[in-house]
């Protein structure tokens, strides 16, 4: 009773973690309290496209005539719906998923974000042969994680036809947040065109779907604003890149209808709540090509999980979700009124929409759409340092300058180098920069050239609180605390005009062998985006611990968004023997060759 320690002194993170671990889970029992996760409340099983409950699930894949956005069309269906039903598993189960192919071509299902044996990963030609027409393949794997994930075809362009769905795994133990109700929100992009012809259009005419190119009118407006020389120089640079500053997305709302749980904005899918409830929204971007900016005007959102992994709660007004990412957010609607769930495509060419309401048939105002943004000069970062903004230059430390690829050094604009503040460079000690004797950054430190504090193109950071990668912070360190033994640097490369996408300048068809990870090694993967578009990079079979500067509390993800010109890094524990896919999750980029095999042995 004497002196309970009311906190008044700062604790180091390490001390805090030790203390937390010491009490751990046992304390709930010690206090004689029933864990409240034992209550089944907080879970709903309503989903627009049906629910298949594990551990044993049978799925039939068909091509059939179904309406999408009120128009009869010919998508791929899973158990009769497109996108497919919600699959619900429980952590600790042994899942048995029987997939029957009723298409006239081979198919597959990849369980996105799940850690499982390599033969169950569902990548044809890598994990297995694929599922031939008329055949049933049985996936069997132990479920060793929980959270919000999804599944999709890994065969050709089938995913674009609606061959995808949510995969929810209920936690065996209490999650670090609580809620009264949940809704799953799957975002997809639908086209009434044949995906093969979309791909052909992209290959033959750059900007085919970009109706927002800068015009001669924009040119004169720029001249008025910036003067002729600057405008001409800018145009010249973009031309040299074979890009347009308005290449925000390569496939746009001109062909896409953006869907939420398979419903168009006009169909207005409605998620119900009771005023005062905490509602968990499990948001999944199951699009082929589209990033979204998600917000609910009138409601604050609190991000509690990213890519299925719990993170310390982050209150936000808006978050950007890259293709293949998932975010779990909590909202607390206090009033008996309708709210618009608004998911605006990153290029502003359209939006998906649903309504959060206390009863069916309500609608709230649809917010005004923002204008398309122009790619700024930061997108040129990787194309010679001339384009780098000055703050980035300052954040560069000397040791890393030395560690830089020499070819990059040569392409650096000399005048800019001279303008750098040499005194501050000289004054930096290696220790202060968190450098290890190996010359590598300490685990968890953000790479110079990363922009984790920016949401990306088209987001005004002053307009509202927007989630950035820097905000993502785990509750406890991941199990492997080793420093990386080596660094593997890969460049994301491409040519928009010829629609070629690759790693290190080589399409998948041109590389000779897989990337090799030694079994159980700890390595740092560095991704440098030399292109002027965002790429969501996905590694199968193993987590990527995103080194966003949060030290030992870095978050782990299955998909990393790499912004144009950005350099990001992740720590990987290569504990999953076998061959795994590693690729850009923009469907047409992957198909064009932005794909590698990672072999762990």
């Amino acid at each position, binding site marked *: *009773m004497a*002196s*309970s*320690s*009311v*906190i*008044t002194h700062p*604790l180091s993170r390490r001390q*805090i*973690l*030790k*203390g*937390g671990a*010491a*009490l*751990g*889970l046992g*304390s*709930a029992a010690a*206090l004689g*309290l029933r*864990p*409240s996760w034992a209550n089944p409340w907080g879970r709903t099983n309503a989903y627009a496209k049906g629910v298949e409950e594990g551990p044993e699930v049978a799925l039939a894949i068909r091509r059939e005539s179904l309406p999408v956005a009120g128009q009869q069309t010919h998508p791929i269906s899973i158990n009769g719906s497109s996108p497919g039903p919600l699959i619900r598993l429980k952590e600790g189960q042994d899942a048995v998923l029987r997939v029957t192919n009723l298409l006239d071509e081979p198919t597959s299902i990849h369980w996105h974000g799940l850690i499982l044996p390599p033969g169950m990963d569902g990548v044809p030609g890598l994990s297995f042969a694929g599922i031939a027409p008329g055949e049933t393949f049985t996936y069997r794997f132990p479920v060793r994680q929980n959270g919000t994930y999804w599944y999709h075809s890994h065969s050709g362009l089938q995913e674009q036809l609606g061959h995808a769905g949510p995969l929810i795994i209920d936690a065996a133990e*209490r999650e*670090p*947040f*609580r*809620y009264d109700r949940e809704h799953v929100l799957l975002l997809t992009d639908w086209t009434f065109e044949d995906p093969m012809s979309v791909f052909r259009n992209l290959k033959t005419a750059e900007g085919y779907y970009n109706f927002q190119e800068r015009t001669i009118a924009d040119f004169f407006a720029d001249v008025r604003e910036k003067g002729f020389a600057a405008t001409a120089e800018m145009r010249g640079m973009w031309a040299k890149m074979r890009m347009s500053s308005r290449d925000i997305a390569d496939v746009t709302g001109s062909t896409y209808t953006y869907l939420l749980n398979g419903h168009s904005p006009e169909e207005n899918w409605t998620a119900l709540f009771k005023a005062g409830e*905490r509602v968990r929204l499990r948001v999944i971007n199951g699009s082929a090509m589209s990033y979204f900016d998600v917000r609910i005007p009138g409601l*604050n959102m*609190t991000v*509690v999980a990213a890519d299925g992994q719990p993170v*310390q*709660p*982050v*209150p936000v007004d808006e978050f950007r979700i890259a293709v293949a990412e998932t975010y779990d957010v*909590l909202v*607390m609607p206090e009033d008996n009124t309708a709210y618009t769930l608004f998911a605006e495509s990153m290029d502003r060419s359209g939006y998906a929409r649903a309504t959060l309401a206390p009863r069916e048939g309500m609608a709230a105002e649809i917010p005004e759409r923002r204008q398309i943004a122009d790619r700024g000069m930061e997108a040129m970062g990787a194309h010679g340092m001339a384009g780098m903004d000055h703050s980035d230059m300052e954040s560069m430390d000397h040791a890393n300058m030395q560690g830089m690829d020499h070819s990059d050094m040569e392409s650096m604009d000399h005048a800019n180098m001279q303008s750098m503040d040499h005194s501050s460079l000289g004054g930096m000690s290696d220790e202060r920069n968190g450098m290890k004797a190996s010359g590598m950054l300490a685990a968890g430190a953000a790479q110079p050239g990363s922009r984790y*504090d920016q949401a990306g193109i088209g987001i005004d950071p002053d307009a509202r*609180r927007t989630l*950035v990668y*820097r*905000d993502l*912070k785990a*509750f*406890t360190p991941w199990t492997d605390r080793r420093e990386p033994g080596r660094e593997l640097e890969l460049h994301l490369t491409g040519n928009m005009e010829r629609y070629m996408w690759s790693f290190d300048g080589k399409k998948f068809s041109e590389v000779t062998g897989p990337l090799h990870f030694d079994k159980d090694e700890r390595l740092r993967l560095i991704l440098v985006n030399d292109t002027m578009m965002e790429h969501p990079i996905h590694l199968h079979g193993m987590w990527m611990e995103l080194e966003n*500067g*949060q030290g030992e509390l870095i978050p782990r993800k299955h998909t990393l968004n790499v912004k144009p010109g950005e350099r990001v890094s992740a720590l990987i524990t290569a504990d999953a023997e076998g061959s795994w896919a590693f690729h850009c999750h923009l469907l047409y980029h992957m198909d064009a060759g932005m794909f590698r095999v990672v072999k762990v042995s």
Partner: protein
Amino acid sequence: MRKTLLALALGLTTTTAFAAGEHGGSHATVSDADIDRTIRFEAGDMWFDPERLDITPGETIKFEIANTGNLEHEFVIGDAEAQEAHRKMMQEMSGDHGDGGHGNHGGHDMAEGKHGGSMPAITIAPGETAELVWTAPENVGELEYACNIPGHYEAGMSGNIDLQG
């Protein structure tokens, strides 16, 4: 409202010498004899257990709150409005997207109430147990307890105190 908050402020004491000292010694130490009931409480990531309380007006409660989570938590008693005001203030203090911004709040044990009053509050480090002695006010129907560190309330750290008797 003002009356309520004043009553709350007067009702607050803590058995912790440190906390009492910090606030200018305005609180008398309550002896064990004055305590009607001890409630053991758990603050985890991101919940309180129990999730609601029934308390008789005028009852003096000693809360023993164990932080079994990995993060720092606070335990604040007040009405919904004052809690919300406190939450907003904490959010502004933390700043957005700063280095370690969200965990970086000062350990103030007396939160500012909306009308200039203060709410009984205590901050508990992970792995620690803290105590708070509080006398339930008369003429108040319902109060909330909450952790207002940015995101924590929203993620689940709140509960209702029913004072209907």
